């Protein structure tokens, strides 16, 4: 047995098999348990190390050879795998109450498998094609067969398709640079192509326009699932690229470029969020800001950067899950998600309002919530190691996100059609949102939990820790 067979081939196959499960109730049960099982296996099963079950001696190989190319999962990948499949189980379970299980679970499971394939494939450059396939597979998830495609979904596919040529070509050029490291001109061209590819991949300013559009056009839950999974896997893939190639790792210009792009993303997202009048689009700006935080963190250099990224992974995943879930519930109750339409809805949907508020404020770095420790450390690192100006720009972006949260909460709790308070959420919905809020508070109070879970992340990017970046 090999690890890629378990966490790549099996989920892709299961995704296909799930399409044959007609009863939604069973689909949710099987899908959630499968994802949870894969997460627990990732946590428990050692890779490339012999272990015994009773008298049976077993070993899970880390490598799978396919047509002369290798898929390799290292022992240090286990925490990432556990996080991806664990949070996916939460998404799958949440899809049941929203009636989205048929769209989310089968395709989501296959996309998860493809994302792990993206992280595991060697050479790296093949990853772009797996991402392309995952994006095309996500089209039916974003768009029900009975809904006309909007500009956001179309742009999403266009931008992510353009990633494939850029990254494949950059990967090939990088192999050439490894063979002749002194060729400066080739290095500059290859880096430029790589940066362009990643700008499309991570939806870096100004290529993020599709995110708010898609959130407005489609269900926030399905778009949210993709906006949690794709950037997260892409970020780890990008770190792998930096770890692999010394000339990228040691480049003096790349960190400055990442810092600039990160700040522009955080500030523009914050400014847009403070004026936005649509709750789902506002979530989009929050996610755009998250990508900005990631770029800023990576620009800090290692090991501080890797350490901070470990702190961000779980709060980000939890925040997006709760936010998207709460918005999707609200979408069923309101004709649209404009703040003017939502006025007073919080009085009938208090738990949903709490979910949106906590997720938004956690992302904006409000104290005692999960997003606070990484934001505080990022601000501190920027102020101490880079410049006070950068830290101030970051603070402006965070303020914008907070003002967006306050405006949303204000609209939701202002008296609308009826001034009284009641609870319209179902019990499962309350449990899920409540659990999520407690986890956000828990991670805010005990941030070291994130570090405990992702303590092997630095082993995965050990060379990243050696460069000055």
């Amino acid at each position, binding site marked *: 047995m090999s690890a890629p067979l378990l966490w790549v081939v099996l989920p892709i196959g299961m995704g296909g098999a799930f399409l044959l499960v007609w009863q939604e109730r069973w689909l949710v049960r099987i899908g959630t348990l499968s994802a949870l099982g894969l997460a627990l296996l990732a946590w428990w099963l050692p890779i490339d190390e012999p272990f015994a079950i009773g008298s049976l001696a077993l070993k899970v190989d880390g490598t799978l050879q396919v047509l002369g*190319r290798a898929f390799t999962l290292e022992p240090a990948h286990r925490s990432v795998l556990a996080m991806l499949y664990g949070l996916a189980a939460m998404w799958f379970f949440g899809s049941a109450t929203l009636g989205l299980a048929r769209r989310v679970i089968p395709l989501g499971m296959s996309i998860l498998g493809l994302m792990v394939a993206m992280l595991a494939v060697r050479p790296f450059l093949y990853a772009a094609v797996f991402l392309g396939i995952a994006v095309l597979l996500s089209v039916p998830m974003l*768009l029900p*067969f009975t*809904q006309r*495609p909007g500009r956001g979904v179309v742009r999403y596919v266009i931008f992510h398709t353009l990633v494939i040529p850029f990254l494949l*070509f950059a990967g090939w050029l990088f192999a050439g640079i490894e063979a002749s490291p002194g060729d400066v001109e080739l290095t500059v061209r290859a880096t430029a192509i790589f940066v362009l590819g990643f700008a499309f991949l991570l939806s870096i300013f100004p290529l993020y326009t599709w995110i708010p559009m898609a959130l407005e056009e489609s269900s926030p839950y399905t778009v949210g699932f993709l906006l949690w999974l794709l950037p997260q896997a892409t970020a780890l893939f990008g770190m792998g690229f930096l770890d692999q190639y010394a000339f990228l790792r040691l480049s003096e210009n790349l960190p400055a470029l990442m810092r600039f792009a990160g700040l522009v993303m955080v500030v523009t997202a914050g400014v847009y969020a403070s004026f936005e009048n649509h709750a789902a689009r506002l979530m989009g700006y929050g996610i755009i800001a998250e990508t900005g935080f990631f770029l800023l963190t990576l620009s800090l250099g290692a090991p501080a950067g890797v350490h901070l990224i470990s702190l961000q992974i779980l709060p980000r995943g939890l925040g997006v899950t709760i936010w998207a879930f709460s918005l999707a519930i609200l979408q069923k109750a309101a004709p649209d998600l404009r703040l003017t339409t939502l006025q007073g809805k919080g009085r009938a949907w208090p738990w949903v309002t709490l979910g949106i508020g906590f997720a938004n404020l956690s992302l904006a770095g409000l104290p005692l919530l999960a997003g606070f420790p990484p934001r505080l450390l990022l601000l501190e690192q920027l102020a101490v190691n880079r410049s006070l100006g950068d830290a101030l720009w970051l603070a402006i972006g965070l303020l914008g996100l907070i003002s967006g949260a306050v405006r949303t909460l204000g609209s939701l709790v202002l008296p609308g059609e009826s001034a009284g308070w009641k609870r319209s959420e179902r019990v499962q919905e309350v449990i899920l949102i409540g659990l999520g809020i407690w986890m956000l508070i828990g991670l805010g109070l005990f941030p070291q939990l994130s570090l405990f879970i992702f303590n092997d992340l630095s082993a995965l990017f050990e060379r990243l820790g050696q460069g000055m970046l």
Partner: protein
Amino acid sequence: MWLTLLSWLPTGIVLFASLGLLFSRAWRAQLILLAVEYLGVFWLVAMHWPFGLASVKLVTGWMVCATLGITQSSLKDVGDAEEMAWPQGRLFRFFMVAMVVVVVVALMPYVEALIPGIDRSVILGGLVSIGVGIVQLGITSNLLRITLSLLMVMAGFETLYAVVETSVLLTGLLAIVNLGLALSGAYWMTAAASPTREEASQ
């Protein structure tokens, strides 16, 4: 002399098909031109790859055309109102083609230096396909045209990339991407007959 001319013939096919795709408005003509473009791409790729492996590009390309053709023929042939918002004139398109040609000619020496051993005919065919695909992406909102443009960009890229990579796995994966693009396009076109979220909720 004849051999040199012969090596430029597939480039001519790709050029003719790419430019035709930009100017034609009937979907049947567009799909036929795309099929012709895949023939040119196959020919260019076969200059560097074994015949069997290169034929994957042709088979995939024609499957893509068939998928889009079957879908389009099953839909009512209604005009796309949004399409009229974009520049439509032939003069404008000629201007865009001229821009693409200038950019391609300017880029050719760089690509030649970047990919040692690549033939100029391959560079021209690949870059024109990519360029026209990108130009078309910028001036259309028609779902079929968007799909065709993405396929053109991919076809142009695959033509260039075939010179440096002959992996069977990658060939298979790129074939899946092309088929996936066609299926996504077909899905979009079918779904386009439905109302938007706002219209449905009204």
